[in-house]
Structure formats: C-alpha cells, structure tokens
C-alpha cells in the first residue's frame, strides 16, 4: 500500500489585509475569529441590539414595502397610490413638489416652474383630502418626505383625518421633519436653525400625545450619503443630529423615555454589500448605547433603533439603466440582512426620470421576490457570527463614534452647520467620489467599464408629465380662494402669528386650525417667516 501523505499547507505570504471598504476600513483577506474583538452572541431584541431590535425579526411581520411616489396634482398621485396598493405595496410614501416643500403657493414666482414636478403639490388641506380619496387613513400607514413645512403637512394630515372621521390615535406613518440634514445635504430649509428646532420639538411633543402611533421624525442620513459621504459618515452625522434633537426635546421638558420610542431613522443602501449590512448593525448598537449611557434610558422600547431605507439613488446610472435592477436587488438584500423596518427600492429609470408604472412595478416586485422566494427573512440576522461581519460592525461603530465626537469637539452640529463646516466636508467627499469614478479607480459598470457603442442612456417608456399640471393646480388655487371663508383664514393666521412669538407655545394646534380654515401653505409660511426670518446659507467652497 503506497504511503499517502498530506502535502504541506500553502504558505500564506499574502498580507492579512488587502484593500479597504469605501469608508476606509481595512479588509481582511480572510477574517478570523480574533478579529471580531467585541463580539458577544447577544440575541436580537437584547441590548445593545446588534443582531436586531425584535426577537422574531421578520417572522412576525415583514418589513414595509414603502415605495416613494408622487407627482402632479393630488388626483394623479391618488391614482398612482391606489395602483401601488393594489400591486401589494404595504405603506405609502408621499413625494411632495418643491413649492410644497419650500413653502410657496403655486402662484409664487419662485414656484411657477416647479409645480408638480418632483412630487405632488399640496398647497392646502383640500389637496390633502383629494390625495387620500378612497384610501382608509385608519389602515394605511403614510410617510411624507417633508421637512421645512413638515409641521404644516402633518397639520393637514390630521385635519384630513379629522374630517374623514378617523380617530387620531389610529393614524400611523411618518414625517421626515429633519431640518438639520436639510441645511447640509437636501436644501428645503426655510427658517433659521433655532426656530426650526423649536418647530420640530413642537411636532414631536404634540404627536406623542395626539398621534401616539405616528413617527413625527425620521432622522435621515440618506441625503448626506447620496451627496457623497461614506457609510460611516452617514451614520456618524445622523446620530449626531439625532442627539441634537434629543437634547432639544429634553430642553423643552420632554421625557426621553417617552419620545425616544417614536424617533426613527432613514438611510440609503449603496453597493458595498457588507458595509451596508454592518452599517445598520453598528448603528443599532451605537444608538442604544448612547441613549443608555448619556441619557440613562433603560426602557427597552425607547432604546430601539428603527429605520427605513431607500435602495438606489446615486448608486444608479443613466447609462445602461436596466443594470439598475440588479443593483437595487443587491441593495435590498443587504437591507433585509441588515434588518430594515421599511424599504423603498428605486425604479431602474430613477437616474433620469419619474418612474413609469412599468419601472415602478419592477421595483416593487424586487422586494416581493426577496421576501417570498429567497428565504433570507425566515431567520433573524443570519450573517451574525460571521468573523468578517462582526469585525466590520466593530470597526464601523468605532469610526462612527469618532465622527460624533468630532462634531461635539467642533462645538455641536448646529454650529457646524451654521459655519458651513459639514457642508464643506460633504462637498469634498463628493468631489473625491467624482474623481475616483472619472479615473476608473471606482468601477461603475456601464459608465467607466463595460461600455458599448450606442448603449442606452435613458431608455424605455418615457414618463411624460401632463403639461397642464401647473394650470390645473393654479385653477384649484384660484377656486379655493374664492370659496373659503376669508375671515376664518385671517383669524387663524393671526392666532398663529401671535403664538409664534412665544417660544414656549406649541404651534401645532394653531397650524391645524389654519389648515382647517383652508389657509394655504404659502400663507402659513409667510406668517412664520415674518416672525423668524429665513436661513442664510453659508456659501463656502
């Protein structure tokens, strides 16, 4: 019998680490148990929630399929929402046009060319009522991506529910209501920082009492991320903003154990698969630790880091757009493995147009296929315990905390924003990303690699906005002004103005009264601008 000898094991001359994640964290060639220094096998639902906030994960309830949508008139968006609900979407996500977001009536010169373009126009309660025609507000959860005018849109939503006879305690949904990131990455700010923080505290405290199932804020990292920040910065800036809101609410006498239960978060999912999964795991852990260590929060429900995500954004390309279906599929998978509570999957044509019904449907099907065919939601945090995943979670948490500390050392997020410091860092990151893509260092398939002649740059069915949208909206505006009770409007606006003069008065009841009187969004914002002025953007390059 011949001797059988095991050949010698190959020598591992390769370095232990090779390359970096997009956030700059060294990547082990092969992760080993010793690399995950702080790993403890904590169960999901157990502090600090690395593996998830619920013991049963998605077994009891899948994430919400919440596709962002809205354009044109309230009537047109209402049709699209009914279509999406019929197709299996489980929560609504309303896109508002820029006049609505920035507080201009459709008749304002700044608004004229923007009416109904990036979202639906809601200039008054009447439009909000039309938007939800035949949609049961007591059963459908609605998220509004609204910030500068969040208090007003929330006011209209409550007023619409009041008129439809839906009890406020039944209302579920979210308003983004996160002004800090507007100043640095999204641009729909209106008032200066201090009065904006006051208004946000007003909405959160009011909502906690009146609409206890509603999330009055969704603290968003998505926009700094889409602008070019790394995953680590996305979490760092966002949690720093979150802490600023907590501090404001505590200053206003809020009980952190109560209001923290209704703070929610919102992020992008881009293409580095494991960074995205570990980003969410690290954020859950970091937020819970910060609440416990800094604010003494012991109530489990107040420690939970609940978040929604959008898959796509600037990770998608106009070049060879069908590739985006694959990108979004991977990103949504990362979101599920990361434990997101709600997911918006972008349509493949998102890079260059409002989605058509066809592209919107594929985006929704992407989630449904993952949910019902892939099996990954049948167990909680299946990547937990992976040496690489635990290593990366640890590393990202440490880097995220450094950013929070850096902003605190600077003097706090409000100062950093007013100085333009955060804005400058984001612009620099954006520029670095552009240079990496231009040089080919960062590969983007179809853009700087694997191109072909006559490739599609925008293709398929083209979404055509109804050219009469603006005229329709202007006509509705004209008719509203004719039919409403001018005295009631003037009266409600005067009361709002008086209330705004006292920092300690919660403005929500006054805003809701204005909505009920059919005051327009422009009228309410003008009233508040008279009191607070406008934010002066620090233009620094």
């Amino acid at each position, binding site marked *: 019998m011949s001797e059988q000898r095991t050949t010698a094991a190959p020598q591992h001359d390769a370095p232990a680490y090779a390359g970096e994640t997009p956030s700059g964290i060294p990547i082990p060639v092969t992760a080993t148990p010793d690399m995950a220094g702080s790993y403890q096998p904590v169960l999901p639902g157990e502090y600090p929630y690395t593996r998830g906030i619920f013991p049963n994960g998605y077994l009891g309830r899948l994430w919400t399929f919440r596709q962002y949508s809205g354009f044109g008139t309230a009537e047109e968006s209402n049709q699209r929402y009914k279509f999406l609900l019929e197709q299996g979407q489980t929560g609504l996500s309303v896109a508002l046009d*820029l*006049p609505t*977001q*920035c507080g*201009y009536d459709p008749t304002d*010169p*700044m*608004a*004229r*060319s*923007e009416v109904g*373009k*990036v979202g639906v126009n809601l200039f008054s309660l009447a439009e909000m009522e039309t938007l939800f025609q035949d949609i049961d507000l007591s059963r459908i959860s609605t998220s509004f991506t609204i910030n500068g005018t969040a208090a007003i849109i929330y006011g209209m939503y409550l007023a619409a529910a009041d008129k439809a006879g839906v009890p406020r305690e039944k209302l579920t949904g979210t308003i983004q209501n996160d002004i800090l990131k*507007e100043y640095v990455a*999204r*641009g*729909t700010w209106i008032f200066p920082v201090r009065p904006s923080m006051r208004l946000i505290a007003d909405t959160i405290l009011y909502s906690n009492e009146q609409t206890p199932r509603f999330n009055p804020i969704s603290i968003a990292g998505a926009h700094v991320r889409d*602008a*070019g920040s790394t995953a680590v910065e996305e979490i760092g800036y966002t949690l720093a903003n979150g802490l600023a809101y907590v501090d404001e609410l505590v200053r206003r006498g809020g009980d952190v154990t109560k209001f923290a239960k209704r703070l929610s978060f919102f992020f992008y999912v881009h293409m580095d698969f494991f960074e995205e999964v570990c980003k969410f795991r690290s954020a859950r852990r970091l937020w819970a630790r910060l609440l416990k260590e800094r604010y003494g929060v012991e109530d489990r429900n107040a420690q939970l880091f609940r978040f929604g995500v959008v898959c796509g954004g600037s990770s998608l*390309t*106009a*070049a060879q757009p069908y590739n985006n279906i694959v990108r979004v599929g991977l990103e949504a998978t990362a979101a599920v493995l990361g434990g997101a509570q709600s997911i918006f999957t972008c349509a493949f044509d998102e*890079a*260059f*147009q409002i989605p058509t019904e066809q592209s919107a449907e594929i985006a929704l099907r992407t989630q449904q296929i993952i949910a019902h065919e892939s099996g990954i939601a049948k167990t909680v945090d299946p990547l937990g315990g992976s040496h690489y995943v635990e290593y990366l979670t640890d590393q990202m948490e440490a880097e995220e905390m450094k950013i929070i500390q850096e902003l605190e050392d600077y003097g706090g997020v409000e100062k950093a924003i007013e100085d333009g410091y955060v804005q400058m860092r*984001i*612009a620099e990151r*954006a*520029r670095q990303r*552009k*240079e990496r893509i*231009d040089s080919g260092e960062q590969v983007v398939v179809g*853009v700087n690699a694997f191109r072909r002649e006559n490739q599609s*740059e*925008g293709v398929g069915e*083209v979404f055509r*906005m109804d050219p009469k949208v603006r005229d329709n909206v202007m006509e509705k505006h004209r008719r509203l002004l004719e039919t409403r009770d001018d005295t009631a409007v003037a009266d409600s606006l005067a009361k709002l103005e008086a209330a705004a003069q006292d920092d300690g008065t919660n403005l929500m009841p006054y805003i809701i009264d204005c909505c009920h009187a059919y005051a327009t969004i422009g009228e309410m914002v003008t009233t508040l601008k008279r009191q607070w002025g406008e934010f002066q*953007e620090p*233009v620094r*390059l």
Partner: protein
Amino acid sequence: MSLQGKRILIAKPGLDGHDVGAKIIALALRDAGADVIYTGLRKSPEYIARVAVDEDVDAVGLSLLSGAHNELVPETIAALQAQDAADIKVFVGGTIPTEDQQSLRDAGAVGIFTSEMKLEDVLAQIEQALG
C-alpha cells in the same frame, strides 16, 4: 487657451436643493485657475443675471436637477439679455433629458453637462467656449 483668470458664476435657479454637482464643478474650475462665485441655493433668474453682471463674469453655469430646466434656463438667458449681457456664455448642468437638450441650445445654452460626463471633458468644453 486656459481657464486662468476667467470669471465664472455657478448658480442654482429655482427651488432645487441638489448642490453637489454645482459644488464639484465650482471646485474643479477654481483649481483650474478660474475665479468662481457660487450663488448658493434658491435664486431667481433675475437675481442670477444681476450678480453675473455685477461680478462681470465670462460665463454662468446653471445647475438644475428639479426638472424645471425648460423654463428656468430660457428665463435666465432672457434676464441676461435684458441686462445687456447676452455676451455672457451660459452653460447648463444636471439631469437634462436628451430630448430637452436641443431646445436649451436653441435658447442660447452653449454647453450641457450631465452628471456622468468626466470633469476634464466638462472643463475642456468650457475652456473652449470661453477661448
């Protein structure tokens, strides 16, 4: 032919809040030696034209990702003409669908730059137009 010393205004007309592209272009132009002024967000066509004239710029770059380009680009060009500044070259950047590009050129835009174009190509085109 060079951008050294050229004065360029980068502007955000209308309500669009996406400023990443505008800032990237502004930084790149500055590094190429141009004197760059950035308006910040939320400016009217009339304001942009006034600043362009006051600052005596060679070119204005309009950045738009809100879909409002078909109205705001011609309005800004008209505002420049109204101030007797039709010699100021106008460029457009952002999400501009192919089917809209010709009419913007017909209105007077001398260059249209979408986000996937390489920075060096954008700068080369600007340089050539201002040559």
